[in-house]
């Protein structure tokens, strides 16, 4: 029973923390760039405000445009039930493994891209086209990183991957894991629309991807889409943090270990947010047609990860 409660707590925590995480990255970036920056909780105010505003829907759009925010939000929240955020093993482990997580997120991307095309705006089409290009090219890296993890854990089940690294801490430092971490980090930047692939801070630039795609959204629809994007960022951070450095994740479900789990989760999120902020400050946005080069670099990392896991078995 406590497992089920924990599942709900975990999903609620992810929903609650996600906007703050986005705010934190923005805040850290601002400080690194010698700006004061908006406070960390700014995204919460933005979401609250958006939920209170009326929705404007294009007269060209169909029901799909209005259903998409719900589909995107639902599929993203569904993932938070499957990803080990606080504890393993959880009762829903058997519902979906790492492959399911990847394809559930693809479901959201798929519908968001369709919604980008729906109002007939060239911006939306451009964003949709680029989003799907990046998503498709990131896919092999993700699959290979999963392969590398599955090789050392003997399973694609998230709970088992975490448990396996906990019992054998040496694997966390194996070249396979390190290379797979590097590959997944680049994929995280691509999938969550960060620099150097996409720029989350620009509106109406021809370089943008995600922002162009959701340009027609407003009010509560935009709030759902933006919230889901924040949750997606948190999911990727949780995967990076808990699959590769699982310490802190509660395995016994007592109050003390859960408290440690929350604390370690926060610490990992702050660290990763800092890493992304530094990275985003250091690099410039890549031209769109240079993005495949970065993604193939991540693919090579993942391939090396698998190969080294093979050789060092």
């Amino acid at each position: 029973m406590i497992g089920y409660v924990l599942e709900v707590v975990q999903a609620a925590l992810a929903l609650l923390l996600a906007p703050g995480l986005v705010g934190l990255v923005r805040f850290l970036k601002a400080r690194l760039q010698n700006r004061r920056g908006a406070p960390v909780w700014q995204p919460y105010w933005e979401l609250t405000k958006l939920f209170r505003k009326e929705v404007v829907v294009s007269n060209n759009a169909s029901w799909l445009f209005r259903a998409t925010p719900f589909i995107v939000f639902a599929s993203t929240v569904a993932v938070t039930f499957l990803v080990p955020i606080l504890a393993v093993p959880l009762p829903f482990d058997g519902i979906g493994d790492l492959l399911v997580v990847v394809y559930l997120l693809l479901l959201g991307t798929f519908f968001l891209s369709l919604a980008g095309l729906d109002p007939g705006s060239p911006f939306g089409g451009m964003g949709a086209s680029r989003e799907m290009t990046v998503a498709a090219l990131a896919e092999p890296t993700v699959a290979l990183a999963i392969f590398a993890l599955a090789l050392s854990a003997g399973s694609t089940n998230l709970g088992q991957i975490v448990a396996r690294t906990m019992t054998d801490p040496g694997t966390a430092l194996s070249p396979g894991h390190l290379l797979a971490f590097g590959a997944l980090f680049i994929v995280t930047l691509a999938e969550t629309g960060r620099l150097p692939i996409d720029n989350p801070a620009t509106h109406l630039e021809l370089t943008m991807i995600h922002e162009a795609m959701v340009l027609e959204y407003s009010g509560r629809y935009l709030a759902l889409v933006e919230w889901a994007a924040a949750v997606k960022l948190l999911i990727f951070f949780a995967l990076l943090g808990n699959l590769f450095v699982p310490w802190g994740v509660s395995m016994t479900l007592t109050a003390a270990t859960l408290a440690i789990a929350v604390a370690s989760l926060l610490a990992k999120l702050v660290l990763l947010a800092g890493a992304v902020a530094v990275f985003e400050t250091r690099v410039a946005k890549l031209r769109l047609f240079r993005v495949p080069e970065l993604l193939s670099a991540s693919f090579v990392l993942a391939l090396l990860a698998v190969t080294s896991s093979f050789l060092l078995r």
Partner: protein
Amino acid sequence: MALEQILLGIVFAAYAIGALAALAARGALGRALVSGGALAGALGGLGLGTVCLGGGRTPIFGASFLPLTGFMVRIDGLSAFFLVLIGLVGAAAAVYGYGYSAAYEGRYSLRMLGAMLNVLLLSLSLQVMADNALTFLIAWEAMSLSAYALVLTEHDRPGTQRAGRWYIAVTHAGFAALVAMFLLMAAGDLTTSFASMRTAALAPRIRDAAFVLALFGFGTKAGVVPLHVWLPMAHPVAPSHVSALMSGVVIKMGVYGLVRVTVDLLGGGPAWWGGLVLGVGTVSALLGVLYALMEHDLKRLLAFHSVENIGIIFIGLGAGLMFQSFGLTTLAALGITAGLYHTINHACFKGLLFFGAGAVLHATGTRNMERMGGLIKRMPRTAFCFLVGACAISALPPLNGFVSEWLVFQTLLGGSVIPQPEVAAIMPIAVAMLALTSGLAAACFVKAFGISFLAIPRSLEAERAHEAPRSMQAGMVWLVLLCAGLGLAPALVLGLLGAAVSGLGRFGPTDVVWSLGLPLRVAGGVGEMSSPLLALGLALMLGLIPLGLWLAGADRRVRIGETWGCGRIGQTARMEYTATAFAEPLRRVFAELYRPSRDLSIDFHPASKYFVQSIEYRSEIHPWFERVLYDPLLHVLGGVATRVRGLQGGSVHLYLAYMTLALLVLLTVARWWR
């Protein structure tokens, strides 16, 4: 009389009646009889397959059953599974065809269409039940020829004749390979039953030769790269319910044949067999989807996706064959099961998508996506059905495409246990290529659905589009339900597939054991997944979000406005993103493969080059490897044909002399051969 005999009788009788009715009756009655016959036959086959698969029975019907000697029919698990597949899609095509062929009234030969449709379904059913080479080959040829006649239905359209020629040439090259293969395996006697072929002790070299011939022969039918050239030509020009049957069922006979011969009759082989099938599958999957991305003819796009999905099926089968050669029978069974699961899934969603494309073609008269748009408002039901098909083929959970691709992934991930590391290293490459394929497929279907159905109509025809007739909708809804059902009940499907695989070749019942609880955990696989619970979770979530919004007091007002456009006034279809533009980033990324040729001509204003009067942009893709492979072949064939033409004197005496000469040569050869 046993139930199976009755059902088999129904299958043969119904198709025969359907075919004869096509020749006799005209108008709506004729179409109804044709569809009725095909529907009854398909349902009979479905019942027969279900009875045999569910009851674990393998009835044999000998030569006495049919008037011709040498016929042998046996229904084992694999046959029963394919009978179910033919029945499911055939029934949908029969119903859909009733409405679709109405537009052909008075324009094209409905007699030929109706008769050949029934002959095709009959030969498909006979094909999978065949128990000796003769029956198999006769059914194969009947299937190829009836499909050829169906492809030529719209014979006066540009491209149809050419497509037909390519199809018939490639398919006969394959047929020749199959005859040679069976002659090798049956030691020259085509009436040898499959049972004795299973036990025949063949020399390894003969087995290898038979395998290569099988891969070529069945590969031509399945449309794997590089034998796929006919497929994107022939499938689009056929009437849409025939396209659905061809992509959904006919090309699956290549899969059936390959499994029957390599896994069942030959009982598996060395590792390179599986490696070759896996390699061919990987290349087909990737190239299929890459060419589909550049295609803006909706039906051609779907045809290229058939190449892709056949590739995915071959990946599963190839991995299975490979595991079998290393004695990993559980994993081998998983690979073959995953391949077969994807086979039935692809039959359902590709049938559905071709039906959707057919409904669009029916309503707008065009297959060019650049002239569509806004159809979701004009034909909402078709749009919804097409969307379900698009999600399924893009492997989005919890639909059927996802379940089978997940199984293929599980098979490949399990491949790390292969004792030889240099062989096992193939698996991660295949995993990466499969992942890239499924990502690109999702991109392609965002394009296909988004450009065709969403936003503003790009032409007058699209603006005047209308919803498809009821019968066509019924066909689509049936397949939508199947896509959902096959996705939500994987345990049930895997149970039946286990029964189909466990009787094959060297597989025993103990090799195919799945633990089929709600979380699906397959033997040899490395993960768990539960698509019904996933669907339940998603549905719950979709219900809870609006509830949450309502409870939180979110604003509920909706205003309808113009699409925002940087201050320009009025939006026209010309401002929309096009299919070409959508695929442009990927065209650049894979420019090395596509080698696109671009032709840009701009007319400047005579006064200043900053004012453009007109702009013309042309871009073309040339599949270069097809040229490299086929141009020399066609050149040689053309040269030979020109020489041979000299023999054609037109005189009967000359031909009689040729025949006598040929007979003498053959007799001499036969005499001195022994």
